[in-house]
């Protein structure tokens, strides 16, 4: 049926009905009725003309598009007639949809979006597993066995990455530099935009260092150099030539900007030096499970061959995408669940609004049904209305989500992987659209079911007062509120538990001070050889001296492992050694190792490692501790108290006997009730210096990793004796006043001392705050969701009661006329509200009791069924529900019996 046809039929229908009315009128007049009465009677007989026409038009059937348009037009009219209702419904839905869409965009960007590599589902990450199932990085010999013996991989690459100083570009930078083995680029299949990849002659010991750089680095710091051969970089003070530029966006692993062949350094012979992360690509058609079995059997074979010498017991193989997102997966899905709950609460409010609407339109709907409008047609009509509501809500919601994503990205903990891929892209928009559709279908079906379940006859007879089905309408309305309350309660309890955890964490004594402390992170050149070590000590001495001279500086120190800072902290096996245990032969080995560059002589190292290895494993002598190289000023600067003995000083020079300061927890572990001062410790596997350490002092415990983990036993060594080989070092400055004033001058000093060491500094308070950022993020989002849900639930209770009071005005009037006091009426209405609330709270308590167990891993020193939180939230809900029901109840008491009885 074309549009013009349809228009013609519309006109004809008008004319047909018009002629009917005229004829009927003429007949009545002929029978003697007064013309005006006749006209009125005829009109009344026909009923609602436009409704009759509409139902008649429905009989034409045919094209569904005009019908759809008609439904939408009609729906629009209905919504415009109730602008208040429409606005509230649209905004409520927009709120739910925007929050859900914003969170989904993060979930999609981080968890679902395929990795931007060729055939990403073939990429896996590989770890060694110990006998307890803990995963560990790969040790070189194990890596080599896995690589050469497997039958399921196209390639297996080991890599390590860390911040290093890179100069030679337009300015020195601290960049993530990845050291990657030969299979890395072939298996990542990362295309180059310029130059060449690593060739076999680059990937061997002693080759001149060549690097690949990221597109970003090339653009920003190499001025998009056309000729790479003229570019010479200094990486960790060693020169390197750039041979190629990777395609834009490739920054694996982490946020690497520079890649260097791992083979430039010799492999370590130890099978327990777990230094390397590993990535692999499955062969075509090989399922993950097969690769797991293949690699695990190689792992078991290594264990069988080497026994106690190795800790590998199996191999873990995980899809790269899962491995990269494993830390945040649960957190994000939890947030998605929470925001989904919020959406449900929002939908529940709109449901209640629609319910009230439908009740008000009962007579109209009944007439439609009586005139022969089919159920399907009615359903479509409701769908059209809810579709309009939810699509409008969806559009507003998407706009809101744009802003929400922006805000989320700023709030999210910066170490969340894949945040760069989060945006409002097509899949996210599709999600928002489907979400709106789902909401429309759900709400439309619900209203249509409600509307067509009523008794038509009763509704017609009631003449539109609609109290006939008001009982079930109210019952459903209250059931919806119960659901809202239960969900809100769960969200509130979740937020409460997170809040209490954060408070507990913040009240933990970390063992150090954070106020008025500035940290300056340095990337120092590695110091393996004795002369490099001396240079590093000289550099640090001068740095400390000059920093101390700055005005406003109270104390200066340094450490290679700043507490709570993200990064690598070293830990490993140590042994309490009686110097008499060391044979002259071993002592000579120790001295030789201490004199030379240990990297040069792997056989020497192995002999020592074998000797001390057995001491480390002896439960009486050995143990595991953190190993930190510091200056004495470090303890004073961040306020770690000296408990016994002394700190380091200038006496403890490189050739003096090496000394150590240990933490109290180590004393408790090894020298309970004994004096540890003067005892000897062997802890040589951390920096390759096997000289014994003599304990000279004991300091307080420090929570180094996170505020939540109990302090670990720590052995502090003197930077003058053990300056460490790793590049990372932080100067710590305690200031009298605002730390910000010192930062600029401190950075200037570092640049003057060594232009190649790009410092980055921050206040320690910032680092401290960052260490709780994940908790804050969870708490803020849960708090917002729970708070919004609470507001919606309050509106829900208020709406249902207010509506009920409005509907029962006459009943209230009768009650008052029969002598009910205002107090009685107040109690009646509020009692109704309270019953609803109690059921909702009970359901919420039960639900939370079941659901909160899943949160346990994210809580700190708070039980998932924390009675205080549960009770507080229940009380809060009661209080607000009481308040929300008080207003309608008061209105009920204000009913004037006379007016009420006349009303309707």
């Amino acid at each position, binding site marked *: 049926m074309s549009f013009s046809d349809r228009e013609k039929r519309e006109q004809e229908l008008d004319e047909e009905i018009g002629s009917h009315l005229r*004829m009927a009128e003429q*007949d009545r007049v002929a029978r003697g009725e007064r013309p005006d009465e006749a006209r009125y009677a005829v009109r009344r007989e026909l009923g609602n003309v436009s409704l009759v026409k509409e*139902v008649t038009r429905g009989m034409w059937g045919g094209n569904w598009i005009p019908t759809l348009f008609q439904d939408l037009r009609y729906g629009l009219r209905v919504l415009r007639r109730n602008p208040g209702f429409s606005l509230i419904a649209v905004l409520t839905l927009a709120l739910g949809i925007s929050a859900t869409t914003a969170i989904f965009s993060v979930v999609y960007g981080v968890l679902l979006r395929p990795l931007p590599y060729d055939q990403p589902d073939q990429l896996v990450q590989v770890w060694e597993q110990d006998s307890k199932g803990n995963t560990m990085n790969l040790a070189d010999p194990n890596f080599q066995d896995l690589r050469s013996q497997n039958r399921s991989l196209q390639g297996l690459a080991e890599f390590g990455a860390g911040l290093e100083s890179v100069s030679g570009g337009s300015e020195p930078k601290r960049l993530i530099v990845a050291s990657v083995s030969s299979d890395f680029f072939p298996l990542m299949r990362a295309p180059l935009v310029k130059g060449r990849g690593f060739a076999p002659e680059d990937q061997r010991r002693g080759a001149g260092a060549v690097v690949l750089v990221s597109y970003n680095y090339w653009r920003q710091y190499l001025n998009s150099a056309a000729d790479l051969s003229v570019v010479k970089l200094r990486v960790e003070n060693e020169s390197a030539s750039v041979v190629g530029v990777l395609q834009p966006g490739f920054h694996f692993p982490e946020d690497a900007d520079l890649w260097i062949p791992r083979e430039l350094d010799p492999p370590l012979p130890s099978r327990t030096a777990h230094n390397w992360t590993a990535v692999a690509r499955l062969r075509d058609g090989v399922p993950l499970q097969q690769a797991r079995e293949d690699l695990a059997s190689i792992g078991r074979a290594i264990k069988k061959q080497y026994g106690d010498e190795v800790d590998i017991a199996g191999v873990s193989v995980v899809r790269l995408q899962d491995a990269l997102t494993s830390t945040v997966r649960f957190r994000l899905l939890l947030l998605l669940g929470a925001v989904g709950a919020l959406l449900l609460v929002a939908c529940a409010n709109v449901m209640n609004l629609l319910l009230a609407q439908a009740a008000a339109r009962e007579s109209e709907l009944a007439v439609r049904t009586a005139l022969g409008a089919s159920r399907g047609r009615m359903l479509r009509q409701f769908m059209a209305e809810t579709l309009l509501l939810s699509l409008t809500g969806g559009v507003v919601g998407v706009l809101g989500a744009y802003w929400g994503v922006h805000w989320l990205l700023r709030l999210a903990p910066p170490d969340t992987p894949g945040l760069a891929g989060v945006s409002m892209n097509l899949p996210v928009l599709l999600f928002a659209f489907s979400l709106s559709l789902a909401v429309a279908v759900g709400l439309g079906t619900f209203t249509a079911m409600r509307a067509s379940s009523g008794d038509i006859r009763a509704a017609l007879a009631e003449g539109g007062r609609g109290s006939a089905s008001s009982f079930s309408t109210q019952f459903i309305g209250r059931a919806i509120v119960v659901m809202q309350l239960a969900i809100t309660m769960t969200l509130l309890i979740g937020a409460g538990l997170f809040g209490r955890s954060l408070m507990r964490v913040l009240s933990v004594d970390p063992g150090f001070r954070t106020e008025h402390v500035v940290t300056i992170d340095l990337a120092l050149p590695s110091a393996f050889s004795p002369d490099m070590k001396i240079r590093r000590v000289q550099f640090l001495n001068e740095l400390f001296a000059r920093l101390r001279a700055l005005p406003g500086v109270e104390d200066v120190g340094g450490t290679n492992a700043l507490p709570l800072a993200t990064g690598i902290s070293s830990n490993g096996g140590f042994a309490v050694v009686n110097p008499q245990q060391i044979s002259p032969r071993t002592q000579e080995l120790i001295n030789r190792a201490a004199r030379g560059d240990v990297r040069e002589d792997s056989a020497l190292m192995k002999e020592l490692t074998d000797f001390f290895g057995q001491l480390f494993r002896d439960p009486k002598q050995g143990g595991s501790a953190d190993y930190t190289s510091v200056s004495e000023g470090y303890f004073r600067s961040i306020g770690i108290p000296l408990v016994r003995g002394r700190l380091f000083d200038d006496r403890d020079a490189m050739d003096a006997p090496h000394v150590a300061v240990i933490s109290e927890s180590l004393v408790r572990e090894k020298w309970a009730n004994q004096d540890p001062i003067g005892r000897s410790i062997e802890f040589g596997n951390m920096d390759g210096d096997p000289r014994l350490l003599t304990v000279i002092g004991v300091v307080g415990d420090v929570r180094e990793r996170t505020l939540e983990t109990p302090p670990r036993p720590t052995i502090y060594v003197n930077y003058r004796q053990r300056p460490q080989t790793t590049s990372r070092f932080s100067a710590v400055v305690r200031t009298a006043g605002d730390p910000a004033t010192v930062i600029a001058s401190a950075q200037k000093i570092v640049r003057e001392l060594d232009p190649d060491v790009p410092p980055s500094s921050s206040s320690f308070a910032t680092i401290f705050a960052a260490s709780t950022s994940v908790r804050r993020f969870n708490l803020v989002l849960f708090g917002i969701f729970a708070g919004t849900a609470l507001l919606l639930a309050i509106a829900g209770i208020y709406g249902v009661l207010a509506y009920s009071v409005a509907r029962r005005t006459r009943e209230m009037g009768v009650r008052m006329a029969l002598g009910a006091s205002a107090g009685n009426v107040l109690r009646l209405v509020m009692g109704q509200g309270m019953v609803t609330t109690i059921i909702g709270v009970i359901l919420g308590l039960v639900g939370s009791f079941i659901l909160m167990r899943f949160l346990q891993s994210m809580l700190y020193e708070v039980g998932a069924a924390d009675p205080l939180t549960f009770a507080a939230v229940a009380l809060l809900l009661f209080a607000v529900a009481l308040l929300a029901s008080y207003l309608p109840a008061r209105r009920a008491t204000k009913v004037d019996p006379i007016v009420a009885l006349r009303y309707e």
Partner: protein
Amino acid sequence: MPRKERYQNRIELLQGTLDLLILQTLRWGAQHGYGISQAIHGNSGEVFQVDTGSLYPALHRLEKQGWIQSEWKVSENKQRVKAYRLTVLGRKRLASERSRWKQVMEAMAGILNPIGEESKA
């Protein structure tokens, strides 16, 4: 309440009988909507009152099903009216509807006046 009494006097058309009545009325020739409702009212001894609101949807539905056809005519009092007449298909439909109605009547009669009532004793 006089309105209530009127409701009781009026017999509601059984669902589905309106179609039969319309087809039957049109057997005697083309007729417009108002004429059809008047004819049903008159022929039922003024018992059946055709609800105008149901009449036009029914007419349009029957036309869509091809049982009746419509054309515009000028009536006795010089009005342009839309008149409906039976089609061949409509006649067949009427015959089958009538026989179905007969079955219903017989069945109802059988229930309301059971033949075996005397043999009970």
